[in-house]
């Protein structure tokens, strides 16, 4: 019997509510449609969105059943924040690629002093994951011209490691981002691609 999930690519986008994971997921999923197979995406809405830990799951391949990714099966884990990378790391499959934004966003328990932000997260994860890409997406977004384009920097870094055409990405960007923000988002995407 054929192993289903072998044919499907699983990308988990994790971050903090407000970082633009949902828009990133939309761009990725639109680009993935160009491959001709099925695409499924799952987001979190409502209460969980208010500054909490958020996740967007994107799966694509010839036949996709579940819209959610099982632990230990993500091909790519794209983390918009370091602590979230560590939190969701068990979802990465053995040999999977972790792309992490080297940014610290202390959660409320840390802000109020009830907990401490773990030290050396990147070093710890480097020992657990062979295929690790660390980038300062906030700085690259700033260089692109808008700190809110962290999400597109990370999509650029992901795009380079996927087999979706550059044209498909550009079309997906244009279809997902308002006209007046398109140039800055493209720039952010390109800066991410170069990483």
């Amino acid at each position, binding site marked *: 019997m054929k*192993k289903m999930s072998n044919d499907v690519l699983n990308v988990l986008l994790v971050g903090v*509510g407000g970082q633009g994971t949902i828009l990133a997921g939309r761009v990725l999923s639109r680009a993935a449609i160009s491959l001709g197979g099925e695409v*499924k995406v799952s*987001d979190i*809405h409502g*209460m969980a969105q208010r500054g*909490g830990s958020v996740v967007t799951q994107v799966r694509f391949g010839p036949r996709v*059943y579940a819209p959610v990714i099982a632990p230990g099966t993500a091909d790519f884990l794209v983390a918009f924040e370091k602590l979230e990378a560590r939190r969701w790391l068990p979802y990465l499959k053995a040999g999977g690629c972790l792309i992490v934004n080297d940014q610290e966003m202390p959660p*409320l328990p840390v802000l109020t002093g009830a907990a401490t932000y773990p030290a050396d997260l990147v070093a710890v994860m480097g020992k657990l994951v062979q295929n690790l890409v660390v980038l300062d997406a906030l700085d690259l977004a700033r260089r692109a011209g808008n700190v809110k384009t962290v999400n597109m920097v990370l999509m650029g870094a992901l795009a380079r490691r996927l087999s979706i055409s550059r044209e498909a990405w550009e079309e997906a960007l244009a279809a997902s981002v308002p006209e007046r923000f398109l140039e800055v988002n493209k720039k952010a995407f390109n800066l991410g691609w170069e990483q």
Partner: protein
Amino acid sequence: MRELLIGNHALARGAWEAGVRVAAAYPGTPSTEIIEALARYPEVYAEWAPNEKVALEVAIGASIGGARSLAAMKHVGVNVAADPLMTLAYTGVNAGLVLVSADDPGLFSSQNEQDNRFYARMAQIPCLEPADSQEVKDMVMQAFNLSEEFDTPVILRLTTRIAHSYSLVELGDRQEVPLKSYVKQPAKYVMLPAFGKARHVVVEERCLKLAAYAETAPLNRVEWADRRVGIITAGIAYQYVKEALPGVSVLKLGLTYPLPEKLICDFVKAVKTCYVVEELEPFLEDQIRAWGLGVIGKELVPREDELSSAIVARTVGSQVAAVAPELVAPDLTAVALPGMRAPGGQRAGEGPVPDARETTTAAPAELPGRPPLMCPGCPHRGVFYVLKKLRLVVAGDIGCYTLGATPPLQAMDSCICMGASLGVAMGLEKARGADFARRVVGVIGDSTFLHSGMTGLLDMVYNGGTGTLIILDNSTTAMTGHQDHPGTGYTASHQPAPKVDLEQIARALGVHRVQVVDSYNLETLERAIQEETAAREPSVIIARRPCALLKKEKEAVYAVSPANCLSCRYCLDLGCPAISFSDGHGVIDPVLCNGCGLCTQVCPGEAIRKAGEEDE
């Protein structure tokens, strides 16, 4: 043309293609996007009703009036609409009527995870369960057709993973369904006892006809594969079964009430071992067992929380793997699930030989959590800060402000359902006396007050309660994404509308003490709350400020002047995500700061000023 749509948008599209003319809802995760999308079609009248009961009643009227109609709500919203629903089951419809129930297994944004398929059984009406966005769209059309063919309302039941997951949908054209003629039929629509008695007979006959229809309905299908194992499933659970157990035979039910007895009997008998895999309650399983069929279900598959491919693999999959390992997806059985009980009673990961990958990459338990919280500049924050300071007993309600229950504010004692704050506050007073009531407040949002808070306030006035209600008026339905309501001055299609006046409502309900205060002013908030809780008569405080997310212009942000900082950490008690503490003083993140100024009011050292002025 194929488009990537969430289930809710596929539903709106399907309803539009099916010729729906009238749609009504009250916002509620995970159902909200349905009406938002329908409101964009010019052929459809779509409204935000004040609550789900009214929404369903509007749909009923439209159906009697000859228009295909739809009401959409979250699972707990159907509780509010259950009164019209149960009798609508008796009257049946004129034009098709579909009730969308969006259930929330896993409680992503809800107070319980009730399984609304039981409503279909209680009302004896059909229940359809789609498994992806394409099926959602197709099933809306089928639901309208069934509704008209069998003269019955139809429940289309989504769950969060269906409502909010994207998958590809083939779009179609709108089918123009002409208005049906309106004919006065009291014996059908006036449910006097004598008429109701006659209609109940019709309901039972109809259910038998539906069950017969279910035997051959294309909504149900068998996917034969290896016959050693058969699985009966529906909705999102079907996807998890296909993923985890790619080699087994599957009976996929699209119509989950009433069930096709013969189809199910034949399937169970044709396979060696039959499992029922369904999310939440053993709704299918109990009915199947009642026919004397041997199936395995909830003894393996959890009743709590949402399912997943991994859970199906670890429960049913591990049993199947013992006899036919080739039927199970190997990569899913290898992974232990955090917090899940593995078969045999051990907690996953507590087994004698833990999975190697788990030991290296499992998230360490000591990772700080990242719970949802009130936004910077949220107008609710100050109210809960004062409530905590005054150590009041707070009967809460449903909305963003329920986050007032979480650290560091922790100023909420109960949250039951929409509109419950008033009744609970009244009950506390009647149980413990008027002196106790001096320490009790009810807290409710503007949208929730208009949904079902008014009757609670009326009760307090009528029955001699002396409690205080704080209406947190942020001028929107914030939690679900800023939908309009009767107090905002706009309709679902963004047309201007009369704006109801909360003060006038409170006064009209008989409350003489009504104060309006600024949610950003802690001093006046505290004074108002002390005055009103002390008064031995019903009172209402309207704490007013628009939701911080609706602010268009960002106000000047604040900064801490380290030299003046007393290191008291009082500012941290606000639980503002923009404020932290490092190097011995408070720090305000200028990107997150919304400029509300609450922190300046709690700082005893006057160390917090507008940015740029802090060193003066």
